[in-house]
């Protein structure tokens, strides 16, 4: 199952901006975050095909997953 992953802001550091990756069927957003070693408590906006999703959302063939870090400073 091919999924395009787009990373934003500090998530790119030591990783990538955009990659298309093969994941096994049934892979969730949380699984992708874990593979990329993105700490759960740093996850901000998560979107599949421009729609907000939660960690347990299962990915489909051809999806684009976008992950932003949690920003809270002022």
């Amino acid at each position, binding site marked *: 199952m091919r999924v395009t992953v787009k990373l934003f802001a500090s998530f790119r550091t030591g990783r990538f901006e955009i990659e298309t990756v093969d994941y096994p069927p049934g892979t969730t957003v949380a699984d992708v975050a874990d593979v990329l070693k993105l700490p759960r408590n740093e996850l901000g906006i998560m979107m599949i095909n421009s729609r907000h999703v939660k960690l*347990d*959302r299962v990915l489909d063939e051809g999806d684009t997953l976008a992950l932003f*870090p949690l*920003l809270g400073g*002022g």
Partner: protein
Amino acid sequence: MIAVLDFIRESAVGDLVAWQHQLEAARRFSLSPALVEGIILDNGLLPARYQRNRQTISQAGQRELFHSRVAVIGCGGLGGYIIEELARLGVGTIVAIDPDVFEEHNLNRQLFSTPDNLGQYKVEAALRRVTGINPAVTLIARQTAFSAENGVELLNGSRVAVDALDSIGVRIELADACSALGIPLVHGAIAGWFGHVTTQFPGDDTLQSIYGAQKSCKGVETSLGNPSFTPAVVASLEVAEVCKLLLGQGTPLRGRQLAIDLYSMEISMIEMHESDRETG
């Protein structure tokens, strides 16, 4: 009131009233500079300090800004720039809310912090600064922490709330208070080279969409810190949103979130479609 208006009209050059004449009118007729500014603007004239606003903001718009009250929640990195820009813009009443005093680690970015005022309340520094740059603006200093308990009271009477907080949990409480009062909330947040801005309108659940699952977490600013330029950029974008909301002009960031990456120099527009609620 007739006499003061006559004095103002006689001293005007074209439709511009110089600051020295605004002050002289205040002195002669025992009025505050703010009251005189209201008389100037209500009679089709313009305080000369706003003449370079003119191609952007009409005389009627400038009057609208003067008669507006805006609450700024947080007077640190974002809040300092926001208050400065609102005061220079000519927003008539600014409610500045913050419980804290300046500390040394604020000096790298917080506009109103100086070595001389470390240990002093941020809202008091904001009051001194605004009085210094635009005495016709009324700043109401509220030295208290915003919370669900006092939120509605603090925001009551404000047309717009501006988020300059540093806590995700309090931001959610702020969004709830704005919903209860039916006022828009201009939201900004920063960390390191990165920031985002959006505006929640009454009836929208924008901040829940952004933070709902992580409301008890700290953001990545705890590891990235905040340099001088990121709050200046995000604060300016927030003030542009406030200006449009007060004037009822332009296109605000409703249902859209601007994500700013100053490291890659990329700005992304996130269209905030309905959350995918049926999953989990």
